[in-house]
C-alpha cells in the first residue's frame, strides 16, 4: 500500500508537467493580454511592461523560464496584485479556501450520509419523500442563488449572522458560506448513499444475513453501510472538484479571501502567473486527493488489491 502510494506520487510529476504545459500554452493562445484594458497604453509604455515581465521573449523561452522558476519554488510575480507574489497569494488564500471547503465537505458527509441511509431504510415512506424532496431542492437551486438568498435572509432581514466578510475566519462569518457551499453536496451525497444503500440491502448477502436471523440493526451497521459507502467514496473526487468550483461563487459573494476567486479572476484578467500558480497548485492538490480517495476505496473494499 505504501509503495503503491509512493509510486502514485512519483507518477504525479509527469501529470503535473502535462497540466502545466497545457495551461501555459492555452493561456497564451487566449485573446487579450494582461495589459489590455479600458485605456489603451502608449506603445512605449506597453513595451516597457512587456519587457519587465519577459513577455517580449519567444514563447518557448518563456515556458522554460517559467519551469525553471517553478523548480525553485518561485511562482513569479502577479500581474495584477503588484505588492504580492503569486506564492504570497496562495499562501494567504489557500488556508482560507481549505477551511471553507473542508468544513463544507465534512458538513455534507455528516448530513448527507445519515439522510441517505434513513431514506433508504424507510424507502417510499413519507420520510423518504421528505428527505429526497429536500435534497432535490438543494440540487435544483444554483448556489449563486442560494448564497445571496442566505445573506439576505440571515444577514439583512434577520440580522443573525454577518452578510459577508471574512473577519479572520470568525465563526459567525463561517456559517453562511459553509452552508451555501455544502447544500448541493449534501443533496448529492444523500442521493448517492440512498441509491447505493437500497442496492446493497437488496443483495443476496444481506438477505443471507437476515435469513440467519441477525437483527436489522446489526445487518445495517455491520454489513450494509460499509459496502454502500463505496459509490460515495467514488463520488468524493467529483465532490471536491464541485466544492472548488462552488468556492469561486461563494468566495465572490461573501467576500472571502480564498484562492477560488484568483482562479477565475486570473483567467479573465489574463494574469498569466496567477492562473498558472493556481492551476499548478490545484493540480497537485487534486492528484493528492484522488490518491487519498483511491486508498480509502481500497480500505473499504477488501476485494480490491493494489498490485505493487
Amino acid at each position: 500500500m505504501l509503495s503503491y502510494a509512493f509510486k502514485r506520487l512519483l507518477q504525479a510529476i509527469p501529470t503535473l508537467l502535462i497540466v502545466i504545459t497545457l495551461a501555459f500554452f492555452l493561456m497564451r493562445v487566449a485573446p487579450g493580454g494582461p495589459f489590455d484594458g479600458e485605456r489603451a497604453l502608449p506603445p512605449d509604455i506597453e513595451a516597457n511592461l512587456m519587457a519587465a515581465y519577459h513577455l517580449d521573449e519567444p514563447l518557448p523561452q518563456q515556458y522554460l523560464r517559467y519551469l525553471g522558476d517553478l523548480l525553485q519554488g518561485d511562482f513569479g510575480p502577479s500581474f495584477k496584485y503588484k505588492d504580492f507574489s503569486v506564492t504570497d497569494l496562495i499562501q494567504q488564500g489557500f488556508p482560507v479556501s481549505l477551511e471553507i471547503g473542508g468544513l463544507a465537505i465534512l458538513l455534507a458527509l455528516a448530513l448527507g450520509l445519515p439522510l441517505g441511509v434513513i431514506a433508504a431504510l424507510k424507502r417510499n415512506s413519507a420520510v423518504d419523500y421528505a428527505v429526497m424532496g429536500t435534497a432535490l431542492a438543494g440540487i435544483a437551486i444554483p448556489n449563486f442563488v442560494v448564497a445571496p438568498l442566505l445573506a439576505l435572509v440571515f444577514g439583512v432581514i434577520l440580522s443573525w449572522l454577518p452578510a459577508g466578510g471574512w473577519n479572520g475566519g470568525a465563526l459567525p462569518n463561517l456559517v453562511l458560506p459553509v452552508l451555501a457551499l455544502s447544500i448541493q453536496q449534501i443533496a448529492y451525497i444523500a442521493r448517492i448513499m440512498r441509491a447505493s444503500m437500497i442496492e446493497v440491502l437488496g443483495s443476496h448477502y444481506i438477505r443471507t444475513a437476515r435469513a440467519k436471523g441477525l437483527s436489522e440493526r446489526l445487518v445495517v451497521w455491520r454489513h450494509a453501510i460499509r459496502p454502500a459507502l463505496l459509490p460515495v467514496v467514488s463520488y468524493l473526487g467529483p465532490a471536491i472538484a464541485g466544492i472548488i468550483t462552488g468556492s469561486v461563487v461563494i468566495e465572490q459573494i461573501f467576500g472571502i479571501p480564498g484562492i477560488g476567486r484568483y482562479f477565475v479572476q486570473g483567467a479573465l484578467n489574463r494574469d498569466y502567473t496567477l492562473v498558472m500558480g493556481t492551476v499548478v497548485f490545484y493540480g497537485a492538490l487534486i492528484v493528492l486527493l484522488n490518491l487519498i480517495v483511491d486508498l480509502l476505496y481500497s480500505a473499504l473494499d477488501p476485494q480490491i488489491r493494489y498490485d505493487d
Partner: protein
Amino acid sequence: MRKPRLIAGSLLLASTCLAPAAFAETLDIGVTGELASFDTSQVSGGVWESQILMDVYEGLVKKSPDGRLLPGMATSWEVSDDGLTYTFHLREDAAWSDGEPVTAEDFVFGWRHLLDPANASKYAYLLYPVAGAEAVNTGEKPPEALGVASLDDGRTLRVTLDAPTPYFLQQLTHYTAYPLPKHTLERYGDDWVKLDHIVTNGAFTPVEWVSQSHIDVRPNPEYYDADAVTLDGVTYHTIEDRNAGVSRFRAGELDVMREYSSSMYELLRDELPGATHMSTYLGSYYYVFNHRDGHPTADPRVREALNLATRRRVLSEQIMGGTFQPALSFVPDGIAHYDAQAMNLEGDMDARMSRARELLEAAGYGPDHPLHLRLRYNTTDEHKKIAVAMAAMWRPLGVEVEMINAEATVHYQTIQEGDFDIARAGWIADYNDAENFLTLLHTGVGNNYGAYANPDYDALLDRAAETLDLDARQQLLQRAEALALEDDALIPMLYYVSRNLVNPALEGWEDNIEDDHPSRWVHFAD
C-alpha cells in the same frame, strides 16, 4: 463602524474616575475592487484605488469634501506668466509617517520613479505635460532630464512644463503626482512597499492588508493636520459582487458602499432614503462608431440614422432606472470651464425615425439589403441591458444587430484592433477638464477606438493645447466638440452618475462631481 473600545488603560481609569464613553470609530468602506499596489506607479486604474491612495498619500494639492482644490504638501505656489513654470513652496511640518520630513526631493524622486521605463507604469502618461517626461518614459533621456527641481534645501519644488496646461493643478491631485519616500526606497529597494517598511505622508497609513478581503489604515501621527482627524482608522473591504456589497451595507457592516448596482437603486431609495446618494459625475457612456473603411459605420448617413433612432431617455429612465443621465454630448455636463454641447436631434420620435429611414435608404440599405451591424460590449449586466435596448431601438429601421460580449481585456483589445462596427465604451475623467474627453477623438490617439479622423478637429484641439487664455481655450474646445457631434463621430448616450451608500451618521462626506471622498474629512456625528 462604532465599536466599544476596550483598552486596558481605560478600564483602569474607569475604576478610579468616570471615564468618558470611548468608542473606536472606524470607517468601513466597501470598494468594488482590490488595490493593485501602494506603489503609485503600479496602480491599475480602478476608481476604488484612488480612494485608498488619497487617504494614505497627499500630493502638492489636495481636495476638500466638496472637491475644491486646497493646499496640500505645498502651502502656496506661483505660476510664471507664460504658464510654463510652477514654483511650489512646501509645508514646513510635512512629514512621512516615520517622522522624516517630506521634501521636494521626494517629489522629484517619485515622479522620476513613475516615469522610469523600468517601472512600466500604466499611467505615466498623465505626467507627460511636465517637460521631458515623455522622453524619460520612453528611455530616450535619463531621468535627470525631467523638468522638476528641488530648491532651497528641498523646501521648494520647481516644475517646468512643455506647454501651458490649464488643468495641471487639477492633475496634481491624481496619484501619479504623489511623492514617494526616497529614504525608504533607498534603504529597502523594492520591499519599501511591504507593510513592514511602508511610510506614507497622508492622513492615514496602512497597517494590515489581507488580499481580496480588506486593508486597514490607522491615522498617521506625523500628519501635519493629525489633530483634525477624528477617525480611529479606515477599513477598505474588497467587495466585487455589488449586490453583496448592498447586502452588507444594509446589514450594517459598512458605513460607505461605493458604486452600488444600478438595479438596486429604486429599492434603496425607498428603503434607505437618507443613505442612498446619487450625484452628477464626470463620466460619459458612449458607443464608438468604426470609421475605418469597409465598415457600414464609415458612412455618415448610417451614423446619423443610428444616432437619430437612439432614445436616450428610455435608456436612462426605463432601462437604467434613473441611474444615468441622458446625454446629447460627449463631454459630460458639469466639466469646469466648459458649456455642454448638444447634438441636433430635432423633431419628435416619429419624425426622427422617418428621417433615419430616409438616410439608411439613401445609403443603400433596405428590406432586400438590411444593414447588419456587429455590436461589441464588455460583459456586465448594465452593458447587456443597454445593448439589448439599443438593438431593439434600431430594429424598426431594419437594422440587424449581432451582439458580441467579451470580458474587458478581450473587448478592448478587439476594438483597439478595429474588429467591430459599433462598440461600447465609457470614460471617467482623470481630471476635471474637457480636453481629457476630447482627446479621445484626436487622430492617432490610442483610445480613439473608432479611428475618427478629422483634420479640422485635430487643428482645433492642437490650438487649444497652446492657448493660455481660459475663455479662448474653452471656445476652441467647444467648437471641436460641436464639429465632432456634427460628424456623428460617436453616439453619446448617457452621463454617468456617482452612486454611493453612505451611513447618515457620517459628517464630512459630501457628494462631488469627481466622486472623491478623502476620509480625513469624515467623522461620525455625535
